[in-house]
Each structure stands twice: as structure tokens, then as C-alpha cells.
């Protein structure tokens, strides 16, 4: 029994360790910077909810949030469709180049971003897509494509062949088979990849930092740095900004935690 109690304490400590920083930021987001400077760890005496609208309206956070929303959602939409189509094709049709194409796409998962970023920078500048949301969206689609194809392909491959045979016998065209047979069955997996891609792209930083310079086009991860001006660090407002960035993701997680965990662990569990 002592062992179990000890275990429980250890787990409790670890939980404090894992969730502690997040809670600390949450409390700081409701306190002003001068209150924080007096005591960094106190519980908020007055809950300054007004800091949230302040960050949202006075500091361009609404712009950053909107940019992130537009870029991420469009990227995920295109990504899901293109990825599903490719995955369906690779899983269901046998042709000689099949495994080769799959390997080429799949291997891109290990590519370090450095190998593409300089040339992407050059290409986007060349075609006038530098410092544009469109350019960033296109790049975002390309970076998550390999993972999406990988996850969906293994799922599509598990659909029993009889369903396809039956559909074909009913005179469905290839496209209809994809749209009316594969997709509906694969909806759980697709939902998972959508959630996964949304979270990964929502938090993406490196490509955004290289490819966007205009303040008005910044996504949220870049925008968070706005409060880190060259005067005194406005800890309180930064904390509020961090909460605005974290909250959407936390909400998605709370509602879809099972799906999300499944998705993020897909392929990791054999």
C-alpha cells in the first residue's frame, strides 16, 4: 500500500510539473504587469478580464488570429482532399509505380525543413508570393502532405475489397467510388488528420518567420512576439497573448481528445 501511495505522490508531482507552467501563464494572463512584478506567483487578486479584449482589439491580435485561421483552414482543406485522393489511389490501385510514388511522398517526412526553405524563399520571391498568405498556405499544404498521405493510406488499405467490387458492379465510376465509398468509411481517420494538421499548422513557426515579414500578414505564433518590444517586457500582456494562442488548441483537444490522441499516435503504435 505504501508503494501505491508513493506512486500516487510521484504521479501528482509529475502532473504539477506537466500542467504547472500552463496554469502559471493562465493566472498571469489575468494580472497586470505591475502586479506580477510585485509577486510573480500570487493568485490574481482582481481578475482583469479586460486584458483579453485589450490584446484582441488594441494590439492587432484579431488580425493575427484571423490570418492564422484563414491560412490554416484553407491549407487543411486542400491538404485533406489532395491527400485523401492520393492515399485512396495508392491504397486501392495496383500499378508498378505505386510503391515508388508512395515511398517518394512518405520519405519526405524525414526531410529537415532546411533543405527546402532557402529555395522556397527564392521561388516565392520570384513569383511574387513572398510575404503573402497565399504563398504561406501553399507551403503549409506541402509540408503536411506526406504525413497525411501516410496516415490515410494505411487506413484506406484496410477497407475490405468487396465493398469496391460491389460498387463497381453497380456501375460506379472511379471518382464515385472514392467519394461515396472510401471517404465515408474513412471519415474517422480523415477527421483525425484534419485535427492533427490543424494543430500542427496552427503552431507552425519556422516557415512563417521566413516567409512573412509584414505585420498585417503575421500568423499567431509570430504575432505573440509583438508584445516583446524593446521597452520593459510587458509580461502581463504577453501572458494574455499566449492564452489567446493556446485556447483554441485546448478547446479542440478537450472536445476531440480521443481522436487526437489516436491521430498523433497513428503509426507510432505497431
Amino acid at each position, binding site marked *: 500500500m505504501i508503494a501505491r501511495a508513493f506512486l500516487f505522490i510521484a504521479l501528482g508531482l509529475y502532473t504539477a510539473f506537466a500542467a504547472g507552467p500552463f496554469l502559471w501563464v493562465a493566472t498571469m494572463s489575468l494580472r497586470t504587469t505591475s502586479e506580477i512584478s510585485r509577486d510573480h506567483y500570487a493568485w490574481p487578486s482582481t481578475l482583469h478580464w479586460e486584458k483579453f479584449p485589450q490584446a484582441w482589439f488594441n494590439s492587432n491580435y484579431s488580425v493575427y488570429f484571423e490570418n492564422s485561421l484563414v491560412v490554416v483552414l484553407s491549407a487543411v482543406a486542400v491538404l485533406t482532399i489532395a491527400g485523401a485522393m492520393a492515399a485512396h489511389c495508392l491504397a486501392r490501385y495496383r500499378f508498378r509505380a505505386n510503391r515508388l510514388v508512395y515511398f517518394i511522398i512518405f520519405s519526405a517526412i524525414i526531410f529537415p525543413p532546411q533543405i527546402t526553405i532557402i529555395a522556397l*524563399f527564392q521561388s516565392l*520571391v*520570384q513569383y*511574387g508570393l*513572398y*510575404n503573402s498568405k497565399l504563398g504561406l498556405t501553399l507551403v503549409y499544404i506541402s509540408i503536411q502532405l506526406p504525413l497525411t498521405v501516410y496516415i490515410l493510406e494505411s487506413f484506406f488499405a484496410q477497407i475490405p475489397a468487396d465493398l469496391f467490387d460491389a460498387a463497381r458492379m453497380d456501375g460506379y465510376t472511379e471518382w464515385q467510388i472514392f467519394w461515396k465509398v472510401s471517404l465515408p468509411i474513412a471519415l474517422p481517420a480523415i477527421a483525425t488528420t484534419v485535427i492533427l494538421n490543424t494543430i500542427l499548422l496552427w503552431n507552425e513557426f519556422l516557415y512563417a518567420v521566413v516567409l512573412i*515579414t*509584414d*505585420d498585417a500578414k503575421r500568423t499567431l505564433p509570430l504575432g505573440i512576439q509583438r508584445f516583446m*518590444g*524593446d*521597452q*520593459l*517586457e510587458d509580461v502581463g500582456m504577453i501572458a494574455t497573448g499566449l492564452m489567446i494562442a493556446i485556447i483554441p488548441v485546448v478547446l479542440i483537444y478537450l472536445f476531440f481528445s480521443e481522436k487526437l490522441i489516436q491521430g498523433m499516435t497513428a503509426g507510432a503504435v505497431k
Partner: protein
Amino acid sequence: MRIASLIIAAACALASTAATAQTKVTLWSHWAAEKIKRDFVEDAIRRFEAANPGVKIEAQWYEKTALYAALKTALRAGTAPDIFYAEPDQTEYMENNLLLDLSSLNWGGIEPWAKEIWSHKGKPYGLPLEAWTVELFYNKKLLADLGIKVPSSMQLDAAAMTDLVKKARVRNQTPMALGAGDRPFPGAHLTHEALLKRLGVADYDNLLTGKLSWSDARVVDTLRTLRSWIDAGLLPTTFTTLKLGESHSYFHTNPGAVLFLNGSWYTSRAFNPPDKGGQPPNFPLGIMKYPAMPQAVCNECRTISVGGSFVVNAETKNGRQAIAFLNSMATPETASRWLENVLVQTGIKADYSKVGGPHAGYFKELAATSQGARYYFGIPIQKMQGKQKEVFTQVFNNAFPAGTISVDDAVKQMNAAYAK
């Protein structure tokens, strides 16, 4: 004949419409947050536009790092503005032929050493608007409280400095505010001013250009003196992460320090209203010279360098107007206006004794610290390139003042960086 005169008439008509059409000149600049300098440039723009109807200058204001990033890509993509802010250490612009040759500027109205700093292969490329020296600001009251008097030479000696550090620490005060959190030069001021005094102009130049080894006994000796101050607690504990703007308020507002080693452009932040990062009202500001170093060859040597300047895009279609605008600033009147309002030196020739305005007293003190000075032109990172610049910045801007690298290791790193 009739056709010829028709053509000539048409050409004249076209020319006159072209002349009265608005020419738009674009300008990108740093100083978005430095009101005084920004106001000065906007005023210069207004004056120029008034004197030159038909030309409109459109200015866009940035923070320095954002500006440099935007320029790098804009220049590459061919979408850069006609005029932009630059500093002389950005030799990459000149090396890649991205700047317009400014030989046709009125160089008679500009200090020759400032022109020299902006010259590349014999041609000048920038208007040296801002010039600055490294000054040692201090809080008169705090210094008096420590019982330390500044001699009439306005320069403490090394022993007095050591004494100051010890006394301040006893009272739990930070002797000198300084922060290298977001700039590659403030921390290095401590070292390069000391080395300049000990070595003199010629050998200091040799040191920076790699002709003198960093293992030279005089260099090592100077570094050891500095190290003794640092070890005694000269700088704030948060030195490594303290940002430039924060270091200013660290000095004059909270928590307050005795000394502050900064460029003479200190005023463009300090004389802002207090809620915008400026000094509290009636702050007892004093200026003195950087301490004399033991066995120094030239204690009156100091660094002067060119700061914010304006350059012209080589691919501009409005070269004539751009150069005209820059020329409008290369006059003694503009220089006086700059001095009186911005209170920083300038590369434009000016009569310093005629400076009036509400802060004339401050300017007299500033001029007093430069009395009898021998100048070295340029801070180290304006003289170094590539790896040497990177190593110098990491070692002398960050690690050495923070006390995380020993004198011997610092010397070793620098020698290795210069080795071919």
C-alpha cells in the same frame, strides 16, 4: 517643317505635363519608436516637399530588425524603396551593387571622416546623418551618495572605478546598467573603448583588422582589468537578456544604476516623455569620459561612428529627386536643427558652439567630454566581417561582460577567428 514644329510642340506639352505630374519617392526608415528622430526626418520631408512642388516623399517606419529583414527580400525581389535607412556596417549592400553612387552629393557640407566611413572602392554611398560617440552617463545624485567626485578632467582612473564598483555593490546598487539582450553592440562598448585607450589609434586599428594578435600583452592586461570590474559586480545580473530599451530604464527609472555606458544617442530615448521610456523629470544626468586605463597610450582617444544614414536604391527611377532630398539635409542649418532637437552628433558639418534650444546645457556637457579628443572612426563590428564579426559579438558583446568566458579563452577565440 510644320510636322517638325508639331512634334516639338507635342514634346513640349508632354514634358511640361511630366514636370507638373507628381513624382512619388518612397522611403523606408528605422526609428518607428524614436519620436524625436522620426519627427526630424518627417520635418525634413515636409520642408523638401514645400521647396519642390511635384515631388512627394512617402515614408514608411519600421523597427530596425524588421526593416533589415524587409529590405533584404525587397532588394532581392526588386521591390525596394527609392531611399532607405542603412548603417555603415551593412557592406553587403555595396558589395552587391545595390546602392546608387552618391558622388554628386554636396560633400563640402559633410565631415570628411563620415564620408570615408561610407565609402566603398573610393565612392560614397550614404548620407551620414547620425554620428555618435560612446559616452559614460551617470546619475549625479547616486555618485555623490557614494562619496565619489568626478575630477575636472571628467575622467575617473581605473582605481577610482574599481572603488566605485565596490562601494555601489556594498549598497546593493548596480554600478553600471548595460544590456546585450537584443543588440550586437552594447556589451562590446566596455571592451573596445578600453582597448582603444590602451593601444592608441594605430594599434587598435591593427587589432581589429587582424594585424595585431589578441594575445598581445597590452590587450590581455586590459582585459584582465575589465574582468576584475566585472567580477566585482559591475553589470546587472540580467545583462545577457536585458534589452536595449530596458537598459535605459534600468539606469534612470527602475531599479536605477550609477553609470550607463551608451552611445550619445541616449537622448533620443531618454528625452522622450517618461511614460514612453524617457527619464523621470529632473533626473540628475551627468556625463563623464570613459575611465582612464592603466598604462594607456591615449586616454583621450574615443570612438566616433556613423549611425543612421540614408542611402539610395541603385535601381531607383527617381535618382535625381532622391539625391536632391539628401542634399537638402546636407546643410549647416539642417545640422543645427538635428543637434538642437535630437541632441546627437551628426556627420554633417555643423558649428557646435552655436547650438541653442532647450537642451543647450546638455549639449555643452556632451561637447566637454569630447574636448581634446582623438577619434577612432567606427565601432568594431563596422570593421569586421563574417566569422570575426560573429565571434567578436558572441565573445565581447555577450559572454565576456557576462563573465562566462575567461580572458584566455576570449583571446583564443578571437585569434582563431582571425586565423586564415
